[in-house]
């Protein structure tokens, strides 16, 4: 585990207010989802999951076919498709278009994919104003931070912090009433919508048989982003594909329920191309940017390919006992929680943060709530062994290897094992009242052992071992 990861985790754990904020918000989301998937609320919930998994598997296994079909259909409706291999190509595409059209102001609706490629920073570097319009994303942008959660980006911010941000960045009088804060943002962003040259959205789904981009939201900012400016650019990872518009019957029902407990979100937009002949409004130009940025690397790995089934509902974050303690910003990349723990090493390499696949109790809650049934614990285990293989190649962490060899040897020799048990029992720290020893620290000398024990509580050593009791029975 890197020092940065370790430090971020401890900072989060030490912040009582933040702990409460994360716990409350994720707890509410858990509760909302639970109510939405009851037999009354969604009788065929498990069937839908199985079906969604089958459709995603099929699409990912034949992705080249569906990408071509999608591109053909976008073009037949007068839109254009740009394939980009990395972050730089996405930024170049937007910059070139902005330059050709003389655009200066861009409005954006929430998109994890554009976070992934740092699009705002890249555009601002070239003096384009790029404004986030989802309320949570807007707050995060004002604070110059990364989203804390895939679905609720400002989950960690309190109304007081938002009040300070609005006053500091917009020069408005301090306002701590959430309704009024929201209306301040509405007024500022409404002006932006009406004067923006380009709207950039993400995509929840790409529909191959229609050449359509599907966007799911509650605020209306995605609708405004995609229909007020004259140019709409949707930026999406290639894995967002589904074969048919009719598959939305399965995916929309799962996405809203898993993310926020809604049978359908307030707005679902199904967009295919620029406005047509007699339509009164809508964009004149429609572009879909299809991004690789490491996805084909994941695709090549048969065992872990299913990581690409993810529909970004955030349910695995809410249900993860680790995420609920260490929060979103402890994670080393834009994707946090269990899905982040499997995507980050695959996109950026296991060495980016070797501790990441180990930051899990493997409890399996993530797999249980995943609407497309990604086996996250299995993939975490695969990644752990990749981290260890890499360490072995680099000759790193020799001490651990030696320790495990000794452990294996001891386990194969019953007498030695028993002696080791007795030695450990006599050496282990105890408490006078016979209770558990919490956070063993000072007494233990070897540094690696101390680090390991500092995170664990030790039960009192029993007076007799199991073997002794067995002999005396």
């Amino acid at each position, binding site marked *: 585990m890197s020092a940065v990861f370790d430090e971020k985790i401890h900072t989060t754990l030490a912040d009582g207010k933040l702990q409460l904020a994360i716990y409350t*918000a994720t707890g509410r989301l858990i509760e909302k989802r639970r109510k939405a998937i009851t037999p009354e609320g969604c009788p065929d919930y498990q*069937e839908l999951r199985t*079906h969604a998994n*089958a*459709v995603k598997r*099929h699409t990912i296994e*034949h*992705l080249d*076919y569906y*990408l*071509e079909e999608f591109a053909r259909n976008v073009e037949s409706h007068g839109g254009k*498709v*740009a*394939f*980009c*291999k990395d972050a730089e*190509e996405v930024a170049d595409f937007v910059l070139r278009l902005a330059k050709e059209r003389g655009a200066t102001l861009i409005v954006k609706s929430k998109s994890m994919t554009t976070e992934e490629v740092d699009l705002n920073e890249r555009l601002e570097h070239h003096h384009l104003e790029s404004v986030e319009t989802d*309320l*949570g994303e807007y707050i995060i942008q004002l604070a110059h931070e990364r989203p804390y959660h895939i679905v*609720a*980006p400002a989950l960690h911010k309190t*109304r007081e912090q938002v009040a300070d941000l609005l006053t500091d960045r917009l020069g408005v009088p301090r306002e701590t009433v*959430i*309704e009024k804060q*929201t209306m301040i943002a*509405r007024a500022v*962003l409404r002006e932006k*919508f009406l004067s923006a040259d380009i709207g950039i959205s993400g995509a929840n789904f790409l529909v191959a*048989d229609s050449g*359509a981009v599907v966007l799911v939201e509650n*605020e*209306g*900012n995605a*609708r*405004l982003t995609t*229909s007020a400016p004259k140019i709409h650019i949707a930026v999406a990872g*290639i894995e967002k594909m589904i*074969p*048919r*518009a*009719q598959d*939305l*019957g399965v995916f929309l029902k799962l996405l809203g329920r898993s993310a926020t407990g809604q*049978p359908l979100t*307030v*707005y*679902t*937009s*199904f*967009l*295919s191309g620029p406005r*047509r002949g007699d*339509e*009164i*409004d*809508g964009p004149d130009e429609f572009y879909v940017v299809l991004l*690789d940025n490491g996805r*084909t690397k994941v*695709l*090549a790995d048969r065992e872990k390919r299913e990581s690409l089934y993810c529909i970004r509902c955030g349910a695995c974050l809410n249900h993860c006992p680790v995420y609920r303690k260490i929060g979103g910003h402890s994670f080393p990349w834009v994707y946090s929680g269990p899905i982040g723990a499997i995507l980050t090493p695959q996109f950026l390499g296991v060495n980016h943060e070797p501790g990441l696949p180990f930051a899990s109790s493997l409890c399996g809650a993530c797999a249980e709530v995943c609407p497309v049934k990604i086996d996250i614990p299995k993939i975490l285990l695969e990644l752990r062994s990749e981290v260890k293989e890499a360490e072995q190649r680099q000759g790193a962490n020799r001490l651990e290897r030696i320790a495990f060899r000794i452990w294996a040897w001891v386990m194969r020799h019953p007498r030695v094992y028993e002696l080791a048990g007795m030695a450990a029992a006599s050496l282990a720290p105890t408490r006078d009242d016979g209770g558990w020893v919490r956070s063993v620290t000072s007494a233990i000398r070897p540094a690696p052992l101390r680090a390991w024990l500092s995170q664990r509580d030790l039960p009192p050593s029993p007076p007799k071992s199991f073997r002794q009791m067995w002999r005396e029975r």
Partner: protein
Amino acid sequence: MSREHVLHKVRTALGRSAGQPVEPPPPVHLSIAETRIEARIESFCARIEALAGTTHRAESPDDARNYVARVLNGRNAVASNAALLRQCGIPALAGVESGITGRARLRALCSTAACGITGADYALADTGTLVMLASVQEARMISLLPPVHIAIVERDRLLTGLDELLSILPRPAEQTSSMVLITGPSRTADIEQILVRGVHGPGEIHVVVV
């Protein structure tokens, strides 16, 4: 651009060759329950009200117009070009602008109007959803920019739910560049999970079933 480059990497990763056919995808999973029209209307209205919208079951086009007039209560509005609105006499109401076909004028009106009045191509009973297809009759902005959205739906347009919509409209892109499903007023809970309505879209929604 990187089109061929990316497609090549995808094919290599999957061990497929260019133009290789695919086996058919898993069958479409749509389940449509048979529900009587009365039950559909009841469910539709209940769902909208649960989302803090208001509903009115109009007995006649005149009744619909009178209801809309009461909601407007003297406020100005932009109405879409839907035939149903004309049949109900909405354009004749005081303070209502309609018959707009130019984008610039429509946007200017919508950004100052108190209310937007539209029809709906379909409605979904089990979720309380309005289905709007952009066309010369229905612009996108009328249900989006004004703080109040009033929609008039014909009762025979009420479907059981999303699955029935997708079976009637298997390819929405053949009809419009934009199909939007609207389920209740615009909302956010991005600050401390506190629900606030009307963040970007209309915070108030009134639906009339004729």
